[in-house]
């Protein structure tokens, strides 16, 4: 084990310079709930750890005038749960974010960390994807903004270049008639990694017909999936049984899971359909009650 250099820069530019200039393997520390586990288990052996929590932008949370949100990459789920605005506008996003691990983990785990750890089972990601969130990335070549679903490219792998890190996220304003939900299946009631996760965001018109929808699945492929056929299955419907059956089938068809210690291919495939139906129903109920 080599000795680790620890830095806690106060600005984005300093952080980028440290990450870009690192000789060995550099790691960004946000909530630390994945990084420190990997460090202690000797799964990683970084030469540099850059704690981004001293950078104001990563720790800020702002509801903008147009109803959208700008959320720092190191903002913790427990902090979001304690806010009235986002829990009312995007309960599904907060659910996914604040389901990560225990109370102790929720006080630290961040959206940026959960996303960039690039686990296909990350709880916060399906709801972020369904909600249409984008990530603001800083790097040696400046800033860029990309959809959340374009960050992870495989288990543990991201599209970020050397020196880049996610500074913050953009969450759109909740559309009129909008509702979202995140559900996951775990063997226990808490503390587990999702066997399957599903985020649904949709918009209902005054008649209760779905006018737009985005459905996202976790833990059924190397990355979190956007299931376009699932959205198609419910758009234009009032989520009647036939639409729900189509939604279920589309999610089962899209799921390409593996069998491992947490679940089998057969099980994950079936559950993807079950959770999509249940999440769509919750999202619609929320849309109606807004």
């Amino acid at each position, binding site marked *: 084990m080599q000795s680790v250099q*620890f830095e*806690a820069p106060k600005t984005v530019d300093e952080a980028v310079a440290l990450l870009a200039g690192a000789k060995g393997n550099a790691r960004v*520390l946000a909530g*630390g*709930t994945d990084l*420190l*586990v990997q460090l*202690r*288990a000797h799964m990683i052996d970084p030469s540099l*750890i850059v*704690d981004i*929590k001293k950078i104001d932008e990563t720790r800020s949370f702002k509801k903008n005038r147009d109803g959208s949100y700008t959320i720092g990459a190191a903002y*913790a789920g*427990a902090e979001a749960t304690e806010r009235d605005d986002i829990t009312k506008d995007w309960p599904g996003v907060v659910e996914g974010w604040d389901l990560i*691990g*225990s*109370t*102790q*983990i929720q*006080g*630290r785990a961040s959206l940026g960390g959960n996303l960039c750890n690039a686990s296909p089972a990350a709880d916060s990601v399906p709801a972020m994807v369904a909600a249409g969130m984008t990530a603001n990335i800083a790097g040696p070549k400046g800033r860029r903004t990309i959809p959340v679903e374009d960050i992870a490219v495989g288990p543990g792998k991201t599209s970020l270049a050397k020196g880049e890190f996610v500074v913050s996220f953009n969450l759109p304003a909740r559309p009129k008639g909008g509702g979202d939900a995140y559900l996951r299946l775990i063997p226990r*009631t*808490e*503390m587990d990694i999702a066997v399957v996760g599903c985020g649904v965001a949709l918009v209902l018109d005054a008649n209760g017909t779905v006018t737009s929808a985005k459905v996202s699945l976790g833990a059924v492929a190397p990355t979190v999936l956007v299931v376009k056929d699932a959205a198609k299955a419910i758009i234009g419907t009032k989520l009647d049984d036939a639409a729900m059956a189509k939604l279920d089938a589309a999610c089962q068809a899209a799921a390409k899971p593996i069998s491992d210690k947490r679940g089998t291919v057969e099980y994950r495939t079936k559950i993807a359909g079950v959770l999509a139906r249940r999440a769509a129903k919750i999202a619609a109920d929320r849309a109606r009650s807004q």
Partner: protein
Amino acid sequence: MLRDELNLTGSKEGCASGDCGACSVTVDGRLVCSCLVLGAECEGKSIETIEGMADGEKLHPLQQTFLEEAALQCGICTPGVLVAAKSLLERNNNPTETEVRYWLAGNLCRCTGYDKIIRAVMKTAAEMRGGA
């Protein structure tokens, strides 16, 4: 860091991966697993451990109720459970059984089946509300 350098061995290490909660402490009032916090991150922050829970010889009401209600057996999880429960009661002085169970889901206890722990936390909350 807490255990090896400051010799505060009240926070226990059960897993070193954030899965057992035995090392629970609060950092600036926020409940965390100390195994998943680097010492360097805590510069200038206020850390509360089990060692600071009692006020001199006077036990915190949670500590006293845990003794009276036999809410501990081997005692290895107890410091973490107490720190977590105190953090809950500071946020919510009237939690439901379900709220207590979910708040403490990250504090593994293998001895008690949780029954007496949950009862002790709820009883303390009721007493603290009554006394306020």
